[in-house]
């Protein structure tokens, strides 16, 4: 109990620190130089309508590469960690999933994947992008898993998608360095007409690859969790 009181005191101190921020901080009246630059120059320089996407994929593309890597390493860790606990499944009594679920997944799965693809392919125009699209695809995969919990999915396909899209992402980054001005520069493909699907140089390509990769990684995580034997 004393310990909890102590923690509350400690957190009160932390809260004071945060509170002091509220006092010294003022809401911007206008954007500082850097975001203002992004707002004004994204369209001519990067060619993306969605400034956040431009920042995520190009200006701070290196962060995004790291972000993809984090998901990748998390997925690898989970795969490595759960691999050992795989045991023969004969003792399980599969419970057939409902007819509704199994038929709906046949119908829904392609639709969800399509929607995900739409979200990441249009990331440079509308809200959304690779991560959101990837998550949506993973949701579709989840549906598959729920419909056939006992199904033996082939890791191979997921892995291949993940590897190839990831590698392509890095290669496009390198192409940016060779053909453009720097690593992950999107401008080595023509910027095109602002607001159209095929614009913003390599951004749609990159975001699609990210979408595929994230989708595959998240699906992989779900799959591995699904594979783990139940604990009694």
């Amino acid at each position: 109990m004393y310990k909890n009181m102590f923690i509350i005191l400690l957190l009160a101190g932390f809260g004071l620190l945060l509170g002091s921020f509220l006092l010294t901080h003022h809401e911007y009246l206008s954007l500082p130089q850097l975001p203002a630059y992004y707002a004004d120059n994204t369209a001519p320089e990067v060619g993306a309508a969605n400034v956040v996407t431009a920042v995520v994929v190009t200006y701070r593309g290196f962060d995004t590469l790291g972000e993809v890597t984090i998901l990748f390493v998390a997925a690898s860790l989970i795969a490595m960690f759960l691999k050992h606990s795989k045991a023969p499944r004969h003792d399980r009594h599969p419970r057939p999933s409902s007819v509704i679920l199994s038929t709906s997944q046949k119908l829904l799965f392609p639709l969800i994947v399509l929607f995900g693809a739409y979200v990441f392919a249009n990331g440079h125009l509308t809200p959304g992008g690779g991560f959101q699209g990837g998550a949506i695809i993973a949701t579709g995969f989840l549906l598959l898993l729920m419909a056939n919990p006992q199904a033996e999915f082939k890791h191979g396909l997921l892995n291949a998608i993940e590897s190839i899209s990831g590698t392509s992402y890095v290669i496009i980054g390198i192409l940016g360095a060779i053909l453009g001005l720097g690593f992950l520069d999107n401008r080595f493909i023509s910027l095109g007409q602002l607001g159209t699907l095929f614009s913003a140089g390599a951004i749609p390509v990159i975001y699609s690859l990210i979408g595929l990769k994230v989708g595959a990684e998240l699906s992989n995580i779900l799959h591995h969790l699904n594979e783990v034997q139940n604990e009694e």
Partner: protein
Amino acid sequence: MVSPVHIVSIGLITAFLLGLGKKSQQQMLVFVLMIATAAMTMVSGSWLIGLMTGSLKPTDVFTAGFKPPFAINLRMTMDEAVLTTMVNVFGFLTVIYLFDVLKKAGKHLLSIIVVFLIGLNVVVMTRDLFNLFVFLEITSIATAGLVIIIQDSKSISAGFKFLMASSVISGILLIGIIFAYSYVGNLNIDFMTNLSMVKGGAVAVFLVMTAIILESKQFPANGWALDMYESAHPAIGSALSAVSAPAILFVVYKLMPMVPENWHPVIGLLGLITFAFSNFLATRQENIRRMLGYSSVAQGGLMLTVVAMSVYFGQSFWFIILGFLLTNFFAKAGLFWLNGIVNSDDQNKWGILRKRPVLFFLFGVFVVAMAGLPPFPTFFAKWEMIMQLAQGNGWGWIVLILLGSIFEIAFLFKWFGRVFHAVKDQPAEPVIPWFKEFPVMLFGAGILATSYYFIKYQQFDNLFVLIPLLIVAAFVVIDFLPAFIKNILLIAALTFYGYIIYPEIKGNIMQLVFMSVFLVGGILTLIPGFATKGTRAGFYPFAAMTIFGLIMLVNPGDNLTFFMGWEQMALGSYILILRGKKAERPAQQYMLFSAGGAYLMLAAFGMLPHFAGDTFFGNLSGLIPGAGVVFVLFALGFMLKTAAIGLHIWLPGAYSEAEDDATPLVSGVLINAGVLGLFWIVTSFGPQQLFGYDIFQLMGWIGAITAIGGNMLAIYEEDMKRLIAYSSVGAMGYIIFALSMDSKLGLLIALYYMVLHFIYKTMLFMSAAGVIYRTKTRNMYEMGGLIKSMPWSFIVVLIGIITLAGMPPLAGFAGKWMFYNAVVMKGWYLQGTMVFFSGIVAFLYLYKLIASVFLGQLKDNHRRVKEAPFVYLLPQFIFVIAIMVLSIFPQVLLEPLATIIPDRVPGEAILWDGRLAMTSFGYWNAFAVMTTVIVMFATIFLWLTYHSRKAQKVKQFNIVFAAERPFRPETTHVSYNMFAGYKKALGWLMTPLATQFWTGISDWSTAIADKVRSWYTGNGQTYAMHLLLYAFVLYLLISGGKIL
């Protein structure tokens, strides 16, 4: 040139492509990983080389083609090149080292390893704060993945604790980053140097810095890190210690420009607290991995201090940080890897290494390098750091560093000693695959090469520093040769060295005297080594190191050379002592006391410039006012080596447990190093006050008490070597007393007695070694009657003890005579009487030495004992001749010695008139005394011979025993408990106060360490709370309780 960003792209492509691999191709995948890490190494390495040679310029890589702050940029300068090369080389070697693990582990682990390396590379290179955050997160998750290579419950829960801690830390970091952004409007480190000036911006700086400092595992908010070190695979522990920690510290360095100046000392001090406490707690660790973890944390703390104070250190910064960084890199990684090879956290299991001389040697190198002893980089870095801190009067800091260092030495050498002696019960030849040995050897070579460059960089006088070290190294290389060849080579090397060095020092008699003592002593004590068979592995490099260390003391160009020689001598002799069969504990004590003394000296060296400028301490012009503290520190340091009473408890064990023929070197020769130092400070500082007390007066009392105490302790000894060892304590008391008289005569006595003690003590120890060599025992009551079988040894001992006792006609008497004069002149009657009394006490044990070893009945089992080998006797008789010459012509030595004493020293000198020595109190003619004694002796001898010509010879056992044999026959021996009566009367004087005191200190520190380390409860939640608490305290320290 390949852009540094391709370190990342190569790594990432590899990581992603590894996913395509199949289970059956695992071995190939490992090779792919190896190639990838090699390629990463090539990129960063080529930048390193390019930047070093100047063919490349420091560069910024602009990702996305926009200049900062509009996009993220990576920087590649010398700093980053060094660190990324370290990271990548390490990664490459880790892959090799883990070859067998990786072959079985599956592709995911391979990906995690390469991602881990990428993370560190970018953490080092990036100049963007948020990018830093992202890649720190990558590193954290990858680390969590690496921790569970061994998937046991320990490592899994350690990994979870780590994840909890890193969640808290990254939360703090992210909130700091976003605050920083809201104040300055960008995220680039180079554009936010003014952050702390902005109103409220200091909070952002505080949060960011706190997170990074917490990430660098500072005490006491580092339980998570320790648990991880303890439970992770050694290769991973080494990665955390050797590359993760430096990368984080580099982040601190990158961020320092935005930290307000007045925070620097706070951060620095926290680092030092970590250093001191972690090393302290490491002393209580039995588990090797956890101990190494504590040690890693400690090193991290020390480096944090240096980094935080980088502005303060200025020019020296690079030198200091590189010293620590590289040593930690090579040595810590090496030790962790060795842990993996031994595959046990139990110190006793490490005996496996004894079967692999090369690995064992490297183990020693790593330990010594970690401990900060010469010739390794940490030694120089620590020296420089302390000198710099002293310049700014940072005494508290120095105390922390030195405390930490002594704890570090304590646990490192306890470990080393244990391993050295853990030979028994080992399984047969261990199978160590090449890929485990290779990285260790490479890193061993790395640390040796680094040391070489550090010494070169310091531009040390080659003749005195580098060449001796190279000779030592050469003896390491030829260690496989038979002992007698190495013996010849070492003697030849020393002789040759003496020959080339003679012209350098012939003008300086003082140096000449000490040089002869060390060099001649070194050579003569080596001669008995011819009697040993086999290779005597590991003896000669350290004998060489000891002797050359001593030689370095004689002609130091500066304080550093002196200190380096001192430490080398200590290290070399430590190993020589450790080689004894039961020497584990005594050697450990010896090391601790040596290090303690050395660090006192180091502190004194730091203070010295405040009084005397940057001059060598032995060359001061005399009478430096107000330097009492410096003097006392020096004096304590040197008196530890001369074993003044209270500081002597290491001596008997160390001297007696060392190998018998190595004892003369580590005792008779080596102890004079302390005398050299004492002589130097007495002559160059002049009389000093401490809190109004005259220090010389104090020293005089210490000397007197030491003289009496040492001799008292000697008389009850049954062990031959311990007896002679205690007698050294007494003799040193005598010298300290003489030195502290600070008169011309007093100093002369000290020098004369130093030479004399060197001669007779070396001689006695050699003679003892000869006796022990033959009788195989050290207990005197197991000997007896050896006069017949070992007459030459008897003569040597007889002459030795007559000299020691200061009886006419031998040279010892000259000392006594001068002593009377000096004491009367000085008027120190009480102390003088004590010293004289100690001389009487000396008779008791000297008598025992003769009576119980050589006289009396011969033991049954010694019936076939022969005289000591010729190689033992030869040097002894050289010494005997020297004593004879000195006895007849003392002026040969005394006159040159008198010229050494500086003019400022008060008091009257001896006047020489031919063979007649005169003072105002009287005169003495050694030649006449000798002649008289010889004549008297001859007369009596002839008369006795004539008188007893009819006497009948009786066999020794020509008697009949009447009763049955006693239960313990040895108790009937005359020398068994010989002075029981005296012990009853004077035993109370013998209460081992000093031993009790030091044992008390040791127990007390153990108890405290146990209290402190119970802080690490093992509960991840508590650890997370520690992080917040640490942040809270740091806030209070920085802000002083106000809002930032």
